[in-house]
């Protein structure tokens, strides 16, 4: 008699967000570093915001304004800017142009303009070219490495006198009543036991009149703030996991390529992308919704299998994989936006707020633009000496009145349709939405948080990587540049009673091999973690750890 298939509900095994650690009602340390405006996260949103604010302050001072010296800080958990940044990426230059009106597109750190573009529907053996959907047309946009963009923005910011603190993760929000008054960093040099070890550096407090959370996807403090302030959204935020590789190839690629279909199961949302950073340097990735249906669904492995398809194999086979990484993407869109993205002394920008438009696969220009709006709101608040929620409300108003929200609203149901239908029906609905500007079908489609999607406990088809075209997770993590010391205490909060099938879910969910099932037991290797945050979405909670841990991306 075949056993009834076991089901796993990720949510039932997830530890709650440790609010008591993330939101502190404490007086900042007497040695606290005072900032006026602190951006938490040195990605496109935080850096664009810091630069925009520095420009506003400079212009004001030159015009004889009364602001004087405004200390702007950017806090980044990676050891150097860009090392934790990963994106496709095809970039809409609109925000870059707005931030640097004095520069031309050729001055920006882009690799090249999008030449041709092609979309294919894949089967196990064939690739059928299909018309490029209007949402995926990228003419006039630029291929770029987000690492390079971030490093470039960092230099601009430093040049403008912004304080950039790399290697300092924000571990907690410091609060006073309902007001956010700064952050406390994570300590470093803890031994595995959690006690101070050699090279211990204690946490540092940073106070700020305004704290801007620009943590990127699945920001821990952003989540904590929303939960603490009980700020809701129509739908829960949902995520996809993207696994990406950079290949040096002998054969050139001249256009942007997207594929749909195989190797994804029909009930998974996602697709692949392939962008030439230069003709022989190719960014290749696979993005899959974390609402997939089986414990054995494994995005890293899907990407590995995908490369065996002649369509990819012909291009890659003679080349070499030089870099690997992964990151989640907030895909909930319009209905998943928090009702309020500001509060007393606080704003939330970029991916942390969910400003990603999944149908066009874009987020960088929304992130930058939201950071720039936050800069404007911060500047106005400093000018009127009122950094309360009432004053910072201006930020939400600017976002709501901008292309950020109108773009997301136009494609508001596109991703959600996939959660409630299978691929083909959803494709049809998506097509309808495109022609009707998002109006059909009907109103808001309700969605479930990824952790509330039940998974069937299944066993995977065995897959043995060859180490040339396909890679194990261990090899992959190596290519992420991850050199986290291996005696670091675990930053992952594993729930109680992890059954073997839950361990299976975690092992397949994590692209970096942090989780392994060893017999009946879950084995956790926290040093492997590359901060993609998938674990925080459907597995053990991710919390901030020692600065400089995690990947060291170069051109992701």
């Amino acid at each position, binding site marked *: 008699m075949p056993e009834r298939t076991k089901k796993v509900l990720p949510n039932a095994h997830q530890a709650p967000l440790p609010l008591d650690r993330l939101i502190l009602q404490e007086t900042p340390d007497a040695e606290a570093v005072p900032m006026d405006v602190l951006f938490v996260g040195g990605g496109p949103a935080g850096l664009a915001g810091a630069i925009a604010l520095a420009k506003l302050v400079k212009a004001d001072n030159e015009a004889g304004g009364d602001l004087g010296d405004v200390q702007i800080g950017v806090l980044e958990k990676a050891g150097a800017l860009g090392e934790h940044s990963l994106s496709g990426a095809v970039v809409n230059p609109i925000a870059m142009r707005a931030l640097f009106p004095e520069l031309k597109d050729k001055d920006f750190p882009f690799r090249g303009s999008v030449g041709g573009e092609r979309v294919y529907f894949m089967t196990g053996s064939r690739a059928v070219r299909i018309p490029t959907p209007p949402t995926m047309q990228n003419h006039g946009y630029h291929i770029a490495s987000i690492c390079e963009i971030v490093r470039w923005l960092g230099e601009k910011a430093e040049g403008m006198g912004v304080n950039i603190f790399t290697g300092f993760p924000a571990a907690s929000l410091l609060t006073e009543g309902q007001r956010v008054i700064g952050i406390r960093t994570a300590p470093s040099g803890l031994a595995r036991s959690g006690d101070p070890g050699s090279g211990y550096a204690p946490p540092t407090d940073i106070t700020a009149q305004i704290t801007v959370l620009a943590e990127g996807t699945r920001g821990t403090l952003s989540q904590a703030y929303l939960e603490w302030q009980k700020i809701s959204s129509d739908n829960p935020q949902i995520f996809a996991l993207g696994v990406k590789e950079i290949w040096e190839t002998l054969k050139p690629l001249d256009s942007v390529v997207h594929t749909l279909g195989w190797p994804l199961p029909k009930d998974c949302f996602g697709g692949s992308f392939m962008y030439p950073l230069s003709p022989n340097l190719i960014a290749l990735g696979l993005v899959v919704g974390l609402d997939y249906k089986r414990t054995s669904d494994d995005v890293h492995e899907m990407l590995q299998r995908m490369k065996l398809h002649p369509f990819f194999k012909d291009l890659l086979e003679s080349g070499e994989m030089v870099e690997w990484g992964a990151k989640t993407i907030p895909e909930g869109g319009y209905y998943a936006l928090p009702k309020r993205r500001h509060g007393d002394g606080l704003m939330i920008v970029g991916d942390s707020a969910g400003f990603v438009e999944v149908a066009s696969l874009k987020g960088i220009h929304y992130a930058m633009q939201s950071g720039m709006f936050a800069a404007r709101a911060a500047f106005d608040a400093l000018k009127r000496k009122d950094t309360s929620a009432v004053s910072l409300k201006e930020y939400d108003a600017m976002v709501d009145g901008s292309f950020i929200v109108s773009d997301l609203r136009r494609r508001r149901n596109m991703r959600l349709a996939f959660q409630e239908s299978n691929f083909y029906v959803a494709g049809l609905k998506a097509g309808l939405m495109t022609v009707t500007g998002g109006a059909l079908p009907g109103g808001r489609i309700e969605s479930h948080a990824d952790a509330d999607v039940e998974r069937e406990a299944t066993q995977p088809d065995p897959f*043995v990587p060859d*180490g040339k075209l396909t890679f*194990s997770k*261990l*090899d992959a*993590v*190596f290519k992420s540049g*991850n*050199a986290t*010391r*291996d*005696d670091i205490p675990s930053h992952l909060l594993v729930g109680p009673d992890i059954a073997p099938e839950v361990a299976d879910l975690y092992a397949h969910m994590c692209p970096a091999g942090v989780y392994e099932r060893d017999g009946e037991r879950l084995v956790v290797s926290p*040093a*492997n973690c590359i901060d993609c945050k998938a674990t925080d979405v459907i597995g053990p909670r991710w919390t901030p750890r020692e600065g400089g841990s995690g990947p060291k991306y170069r051109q992701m």
Partner: protein
Amino acid sequence: MANVFAFVESRGTDVRKVGLEAVTAARMLADKSGGGEVHALVIGPPGIAAKAAQIGQYGADVVVVVEHAALTNYSPDVATATAVERIKSGGYRAAVFSTSAQGRDLSPRVAARLGVSVVTDVLSFEIDGDSIVVRHPMNIGKVIATIAIAGKPAVIAMRPNVIAPAQNAKAGRVENAQPAIDPASARVKVIETKVGGGGKLDLAEAPVVIAGGRGLKAAENFKLVEDLASAFGNAAVGATRAVTDDGWRPHSDQIGQTGRLVSPELYIAVGISGAVQHLAGMRTSKTIVAVNKDKDAPIFKVADYGIVGDVFEVIPALTEAVREAKKHH
């Protein structure tokens, strides 16, 4: 036709292998430039003079011996002054040193005093018209540079183990000489040379590294690894983080991203699965051998040669075979 100078490194009254390599390299250079003489300098305590004949065997036409009771330990000031004095008076085309801890210290000082550049870690050399052209690894061996040396004499320091000492008997005329400065006047004084634990080689410098992992199952089984190392004779013993964490080996033996970085000629991984952090510490080794019972262990991905099998069976057999091979070497 031009003469070449060689500095013969010694420790106590022993000539080191790298010293004979320098003589061999100098001989090759002299021969390539039309057959000049090789003049070798050796400095040490009383007893070092007895090694002159050996140095002649390896191709020195003249062996300059500086024997002094105060020179049991290396004296950078005396060695620099004495080498400089000899090189200046000899009109050499080139001066050859070793890229050992001592040679790294000495060769740049000598070059600076001669007013010329130096290339350390030289892999090979040739004569191209008026220049001596050498190959030198840059970027921790990930790039190889071909460098033309304009200065005269060309000062080079050979990387250990790239040129095997070759017997090529020459006259080896002994010239006894005095230190160029009184050793008592030296500013920098080596007051002691401690030979580490029974001649144990340092991990970072050993040409062969044998490393053990959890697959050895217990601290006492590291005996297998030590036996294999002693069969090689020129091997150091390392370990993985898991092993040092468990206290089977001292932390100073740990190879990996968070431990020592090694890049030997031969690296043998015994019962090591190949965690990322470990691979980061050894993957630049020239030849990697892995023995592990799990055929899917990641270590096999980086290994040049792998044996799938029980370390308790394979390693003793390998130790025996290495001993046998060394005997006939």
